């Protein structure tokens, strides 16, 4: 069996990174992002990256640190509202941006990893998103053709994993990670706990190891929260502390 386990994020990315490559990065907001692998890409300094990710982190965390390092040429995302640097770079023309509806983005990645070059969806018909794309009628309704999406490298984050590359996610930190794991020519997974073979319940594995080339246990997990919202114990009243 090929040994997939790597000691560090830097070691896992050794020989994989190059300027101009396309990288998929899992996560929704700051939830379920591969924070150790992002930091290693920051350190490696590769440039002109096209990054496929639902969001682009915040100014000083997540993919935001690659923006700050001037490493990203283009983003393919559904929502980038949390990032001020993003706005500045985009408005000054230093950053290209392709918006995909969130479900279309998820399905493009799923399709890319599943060997499906294109599919038809109702989402975006009659909007800017459908411009320049084939629109076809099925059973009396219009659908727009969207292309499957693949990447040179996918970086994903899971809760637990084993040496086979099997991954188990936790709560809403799953999000885009399972599809992205299938769509990378090379997929690197970081996990909070790298466990012995046999310790994962096979029924609970969301990403089978066949999709994962390298796996590492992250050195540190900050797991920053974007918006902590809580309620008071005394009352049912809800309060928000941003």
């Amino acid at each position: 069996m090929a040994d997939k386990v790597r000691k560090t994020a830097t070691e896992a990315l050794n020989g994989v990174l190059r300027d101009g490559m396309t990288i998929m990065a899992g996560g929704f907001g700051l939830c379920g992002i591969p924070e150790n692998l992002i930091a290693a890409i920051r350190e490696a300094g590769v440039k002109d990256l096209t990054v496929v990710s639902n969001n682009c982190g915040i100014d000083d965390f997540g993919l935001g640190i690659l923006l700050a390092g001037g490493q990203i040429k283009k983003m393919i995302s559904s929502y980038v509202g949390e990032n001020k640097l993003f706005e500045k770079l985009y408005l000054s023309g230093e950053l290209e941006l392709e918006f995909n509806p969130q479900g279309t983005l998820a399905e493009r990645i799923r399709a890319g990893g599943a060997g499906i070059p294109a599919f038809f969806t109702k989402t975006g018909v009659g909007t800017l998103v459908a411009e320049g794309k084939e629109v076809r009628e099925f059973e009396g309704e219009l659908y727009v053709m969207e292309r499957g999406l693949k990447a040179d490298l996918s970086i994903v984050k899971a809760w637990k994993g084993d040496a086979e590359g099997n991954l188990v996610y936790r709560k809403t930190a799953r999000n885009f990670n399972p599809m992205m794991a299938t769509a990378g020519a090379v997929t690197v997974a970081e996990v909070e706990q790298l466990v012995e073979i046999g310790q994962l319940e096979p029924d609970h594995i969301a990403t089978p190891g066949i999709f994962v080339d390298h796996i590492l246990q992250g050195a540190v997990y900050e797991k920053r929260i974007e918006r902590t919202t809580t309620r008071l114990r005394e009352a049912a009243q809800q309060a928000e502390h941003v």
Partner: protein
Amino acid sequence: MAWTREDMAARAARELKDGFYVNLGIGIPTLVANYIPEGMQVTLQSENGMLGMGPFPYEGEADPDLINAGKQTITELDSSSYFSSADSFAMIRGGHINLSILGGMQVAENGDLANWMVPGKMVKGMGGAMDLVAGVKRVVVVMEHSEKSGAPKLLKRCNLPLTGAGVVDLLITDLGVFEIGGGAVRLTELATGATLDEVKAKTEADFAVAL
């Protein structure tokens, strides 16, 4: 004095039915969760991958792995489930969600909705809104009736880029409730304190009155 944000959320909550699976957008739609009638079972879907959203956590119990689509920390219920973004949008696009309640910038009399970009300004992105309006069975929009400048938002045609074409079924504003369908708009309820003359003065779209 017309309806407040809370009044609009409470009115939107009357669109809920027992057993519904519902997706609530950011802003006023989020408040609808506070008005689910006692004894009614409504399951809230969060498009980042959760069915059965619970309330905000108690202080000190926030879990970074558990957020809603607005990136707020939330909690799970005994009945909750988690899934990938692809599965989440299979629910949405596949017509399995009964009701989507979301905000709007403009609504047109043909049911067009614009709520994701203003050309020339920073565009944050459409997130899941385009998928929701395309795939969910019933779409309810909750928005202020007029812009801060006083410009109308219920129009003959939207002049902002669309989120979806012909997708809105019901519009709730601070002035009233409008049913939209078949290319026509019907005013079915006036907000407390609003008058028909006021609605007419602040609306560009043609509408029938069915109070």
